[in-house]
């Protein structure tokens, strides 16, 4: 859920100032099993999302749409390690193909959120004044929505339920958290000596922002992106499971759980295998985010 993000929002502001020793964090990261495990999971899942056909064919039945109703709901057999879904399609191949949309939404939403957070955070933190007031009040409005409920309302009235539209709606309700962190981070950087020096030397606002402020203020936001991807993947699955997110014929873990929800009691595999992948993906991104935060943002430890 997006609530994964809420805890450290206040703490991270001034950490951008502490120098990170070159090479240090990465080397210490590689020694930690938690990091190695989560990085492995994330890289593997990204590979699966990039080329699902390759992984789906491992057991000889790679086509998620080759279905035979005679096998509806059957358990695992040779060549079909996860068994069949209700339509008689190979479940393993479906789950593998579901990786792309689930991960895609996580990545796209987080990318949009990150860009929005950096732009609005800079505008509000660097320029202040009326702009800051406007952006801050707008954030307050979005913080007024309980997680998911705003998304449900907007998605319910959307007629298109594609990866792009669902991602945009998820981003619409997740930008304020990162923006607030970015804003406070920019606030601490903007009056530092090197920024003042650059200004005195006659650098323009854009140059100061891009060369001096953003690189030094972005760390607290950047370390949260991995965790945010995990949160978005869960949110998408919840919305899709509810019926307002992606819809069949799209293939995502949420769609699989949604279409199978009446059959869980009799066919436990339909519940277990998609959620296993879903949980593994979220766990991977959240653990990775944890490690990155520990390594690059020591104040939060």
């Amino acid at each position, binding site marked *: 859920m997006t609530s994964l993000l809420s805890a450290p929002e206040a703490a991270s502001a001034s950490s951008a100032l502490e120098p990170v020793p070159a090479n240090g964090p990465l080397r210490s990261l590689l020694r930690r099993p938690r990091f190695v495990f989560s990085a492995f999971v994330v890289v593997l899942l990204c590979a699966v999302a990039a080329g699902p056909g390759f992984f789906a064919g491992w057991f000889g039945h790679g086509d998620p749409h080759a279905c035979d109703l005679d096998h509806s709901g059957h358990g695992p057999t040779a060549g079909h390690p996860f068994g069949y879904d209700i339509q008689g399609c190979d479940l393993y191949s479906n789950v593998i193909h579901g990786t792309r949309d689930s991960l895609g939404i996580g990545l796209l939403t987080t990318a949009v959120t990150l860009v929005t957070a950096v732009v609005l955070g800079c505008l509000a933190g660097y320029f202040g004044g009326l702009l800051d007031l406007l952006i801050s009040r707008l954030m*307050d409005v979005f913080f007024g*929505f309980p997680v998911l409920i705003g998304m449900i309302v907007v998605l319910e*009235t959307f007629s298109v339920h594609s990866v792009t539209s669902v991602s945009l709606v998820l981003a619409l309700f997740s930008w304020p958290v990162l923006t607030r962190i970015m804003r406070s981070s920019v606030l601490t950087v903007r009056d530092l000596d090197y920024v003042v020096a650059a200004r005195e030397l006659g650098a323009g606002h854009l140059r100061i922002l891009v060369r001096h402020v953003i690189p030094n203020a972005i760390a607290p936001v950047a370390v949260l992106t991995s965790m945010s991807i995990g949160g978005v993947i869960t949110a998408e699955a919840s919305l899709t499971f509810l*019926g307002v997110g992606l819809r069949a014929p799209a293939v995502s873990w949420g769609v699989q759980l949604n279409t199978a929800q009446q059959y869980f009691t009799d066919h436990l595999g339909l*519940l277990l295998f998609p959620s296993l992948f879903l949980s593994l993906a979220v766990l991977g991104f959240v653990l990775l985010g944890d490690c990155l935060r520990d390594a690059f943002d020591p104040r939060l430890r």
Partner: protein
Amino acid sequence: MARFLVRRLLTMIPVVLGTTFIIYAAVYALPGDPVQSLAGPDRAVSPAAAAALRSHYHLDSSLLVQYGHYLSGLLHGDFGIDFGDVPVSSLIAAGWPVTVRLALTTWVIQAVAGTGLGVLAAVRAGRFPDLAVLGGSTLILAVPYFVTAYVAQIVFGDRLGWFPVSGVDAGWPRSYLLPALCLALLGVPEVARLTRAAVLENLGAEFVDTAVAKGAGRIRVLVRHVLRPSLIPIVSMLGLTLGTLLSGTILIEGIFNLPGLGYQTFQGVQQHNGPVVVGISTLLVLTFLFINLVVDVLYVVIDPRIRLD
């Protein structure tokens, strides 16, 4: 205190206007026929129902007039009408006792389990209980709670028969216990993590050393000197988790067939009954804003050091 209250209420006005306007705009002001988009793409709306909706929402007036009508309707407890011409407020009236019971049960579980585990983890920091709480909460966060809810329903309800699987016929607490436990999983990790941090911080404080040196017993030191000052952040966290809890009721009540507000929303989505989804969600948003207000005020009451600016 009065000044704080007034100022806090004033900041709430733009937020209430903003949230309701976003909901309103999403539903009625986006391009396309709002009646059709509320019904979903595949559903034919009878001309009578469409006409009723049009007149109810003043869809033929200008945008701001429409919003004005909508807002004054909300203030009078009018949350819209559904496609069967049933006022959403009557669904709300039927559903809210169930949701309040579920939410309060969940909240108590969250508070007790969250603080308990947090204190345990802090007192045994770095050792097995601490690591178990940390690992457990990471796992809980990774598994979507609706999956946990289904598994719990199948295992504890269906196979073992310990709890009723659906409905509220067994009354409180039997019917509510399992759903509340599943819902509490959303908040327990965060409350536990926060409690752990707060207790660890206070364990190192000088007034704790003083209490120990004075000869106070372990439990007394823990409860009186460590837990009490740790309560402030915990209380505010318990308030914040309410947002997650409110949205969580939609899936949990849907899965366990508890006929509350969340269940109505769940059904509304499944049956493409848009006005119900929008009306109840609006109520949940307003409830959330109101509870945040109460938590903020409580915060100042609990800790007089937090003053107003």
